[in-house]
């Protein structure tokens, strides 16, 4: 079947979202693992994987037709696998500390959910790749209804909300704007989940996802302000970029929301067809 215009745009959006996630992982794990002095050599893996994912997804977004190469598949499966392994390492890092799974260890140990971003990037990249190849299903799940992508995005946003909620709790919500990422994105995720269940794309979801995408970018600005509020501000950037709120973290919301918009596009096309 020839790809429709909507399919092509959706593929671009989903691959673009996966690329944004990969960028977030690259910058965030790069900074945080540098801060951790690469104490374990495997700490370079997510950085390498994210660079590869960024390249593959970036190209897919620019050129939404597949040449049939299996390299993207290897990249996306690799991302997901490294993400899964990362979850294990991060859990070990938290649990080995006195107090185990306590709040303080969740605050200051390796971030429990962060490696999942790499899994999400791999999953969305894989889906975009399959779509570019003109495939209709992954396993028995239909690709082109958009519901699967939307489901992945919805769960991904809720996971990111949990992470932001935990770390903003660590910061005692000292700035009222810190409540934004734990209020707006969950509404967007739930609205998207409702659309998945009802198989009907509501325009409110589009608005909420667009706002979530914007919030991810605005968040970088807020985090930059947070960095500036540390001793020495940006004059002391080498310390404060590591000590302050992570600059690359908020765009994970942007990546997920962009992929979610792609999913909505597919769902709308489906309902028009029906």
């Amino acid at each position, binding site marked *: 079947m020839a790809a429709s215009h909507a399919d092509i745009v959706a593929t671009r959006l989903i691959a673009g979202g996966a690329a944004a996630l990969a960028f977030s992982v690259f910058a965030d794990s790069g900074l945080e693992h540098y801060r951790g002095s690469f104490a374990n050599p495997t700490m370079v893996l997510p950085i390498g994987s994210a660079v590869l994912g960024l390249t593959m997804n970036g190209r897919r977004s620019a050129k939404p037709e597949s040449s049939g190469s299996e390299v993207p598949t290897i990249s996306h499966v690799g991302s997901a696998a490294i993400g899964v392994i990362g979850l294990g390492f991060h859990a070990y890092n938290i649990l080995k500390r006195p107090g185990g799974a306590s709040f*303080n260890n969740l605050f200051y140990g390796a971030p429990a959910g962060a490696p999942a971003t790499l899994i999400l990037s791999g999953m969305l990249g894989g889906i975009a790749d399959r779509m570019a190849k003109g495939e209709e299903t992954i396993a028995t799940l239909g690709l082109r209804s958009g519901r699967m992508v939307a489901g992945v995005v919805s769960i991904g946003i809720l996971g990111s909300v949990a992470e932001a909620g935990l770390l903003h709790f660590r910061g*005692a919500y*000292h700035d009222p704007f810190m409540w934004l990422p734990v209020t707006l994105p969950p509404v967007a995720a739930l609205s998207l989940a409702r659309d998945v269940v009802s198989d009907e794309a509501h325009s409110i979801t589009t608005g909420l996802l667009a706002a979530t995408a914007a919030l991810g970018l605005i968040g970088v600005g807020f985090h930059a302000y947070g960095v500036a*509020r*540390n*001793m020495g501000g940006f004059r002391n950037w080498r310390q404060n970029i590591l000590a302050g709120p992570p600059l690359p973290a908020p765009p994970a919301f942007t990546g997920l929301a962009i992929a979610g918009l792609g999913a909505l596009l597919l769902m709308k096309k489906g309902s028009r067809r029906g």
Partner: protein
Amino acid sequence: MSDKQSDGPRATGGRAPDVFTPGGWVPMRSHEDSEEVDFVIVGTGAGGGTLACKLAESGFSVVAMDAGPYWRPLEDFASDETEQQKLYWTDERIVDGENPIAMGSNNSGKSVGGSTVHFAMVSLRMRPEHFATRSKLGYGVDWPIGWEEMWRYYAEVEQALKIAGPVRYPWGPKRGRYPMRAHPMNAAANYLARGAEALGVDWTQTPVATLSAPHGKAHPCVYRGFCAIGCSTNAKQSVLVSWLPRALKAGAEIRDLAMVGRIETVNGRCTGVHYHREGEWHFQRARNVVVAGYAIETPRLLLNSANAEFPDGLANSSGLVGRNLMVQLNQAAWGHVEDDVRSYKGPPSLAVCEHWNYEDRGKDYAGGWSYMSQGPLPISWAKTLAGGRGLWGQALIDEMARNNHTVGLKMVGEVLPDARNRVTLTDETDQYGLRIPRITFAYSDNDRAMMAHATDFMDRSLEATGATDRWKEMGDTAHLNGTARMGHDRRTSVVDADCRSWDIPNLWVCDGSVFPTVGGVNPSLTIQAIACRTADRIRTMAAQGEL
């Protein structure tokens, strides 16, 4: 810089140093000596500084004096233990008794902001039963204030100082959420935690008065670890950077380098204070005088103010001014471990165990104690090794070389009130011509039994974590309290529950001196809670025409 503190007072001419800006100033309301202000407060530490803020915010005219300088931490504080000796009260004093107290770094400050400028930021609440030890536990003496009320004021102080504490506190009644989250634990704190887990007792992150997130113009803590010699980033919520900026904004005047030498009385009421500033004696008129000089300078001033009306000193009809001086036991256990601990990284006491404050069984003594992880700076550590352990020469050098592998636990233990432990005056005089205090102290058998139990327990905790070459430091004390105790009865106390003296209705004492008992926690949070309560009571009494 031309603006050195040695040049004289900074808080003059309608402005005071802005602690948040190098070289900066903030406007300050000023009063003439001849103007009768509502309150003159002697001392600007945990008691006086807090009270000055709260009274000014209630609309009273306030002049708060401090013998020490008005620092701007961002430019005046160095990462240098020797330079920072300037924060301590090292004026001449005579210490005697069976166990003379070492004065200075561990118990007295001479700065605007008082000892909170160099305190270790540990901000613990006293156990509820410790406000009524006589009736609940059968020792000591009851406070005239109930614990529920004190715990409400603790919450106010914790909020004001943005205390960073654990999400769940393992001991005592449920408390509200700390305003900020606890800091990450350093390696020294992890050793406390592992030891406590091995011995089957709870532990938690110490609630500390240093920011874990930005607050106003103050940055979050950068974990320099120089907290106990003065924080140069303003993360530490000393009175200097927390209550006093608020006090200035509310219209209080703060006079630095102003040593109060005598309180004047006429017809049984205070009329003001004589103070020494810029080489001369002045007299500030006031409707009320609050003494907040901590447990040595407070009784010293009350005794030095003796006159024909009050020949035994002010507020002293009970004869208790200067008596019942209480330090807190500060013994420690130390040892070596394999890994690099670098215990001086971050705030010095990031983990705490209050088990023995809340557990009364298994003790052959009365009272409670807590213990915390430690992070001594190098000179202080060398002094501990030389003084407390008797090392010298090559042995001292070798031990200092193992500094990065040293871990320690230190107690804060309750010393019981004893009238023989006291502050009196000698005939010698100081640079102001004022009689200097004599500080007499001896441990009781109860204190020794507590020390033995605590050092043994802490030693076992270190042993359980694999520490070797362990030893016990038996000499140290911390904090000073109790020389103008509060109580229900004018015959057995100096002030009432409102910190108002029984003898002179417009004379108040508001600092650690008023503690009837000290409990097993650091006193600064309790002193500030008392100051907040006193301010509320004064406002209420003023409204009812009872001042």
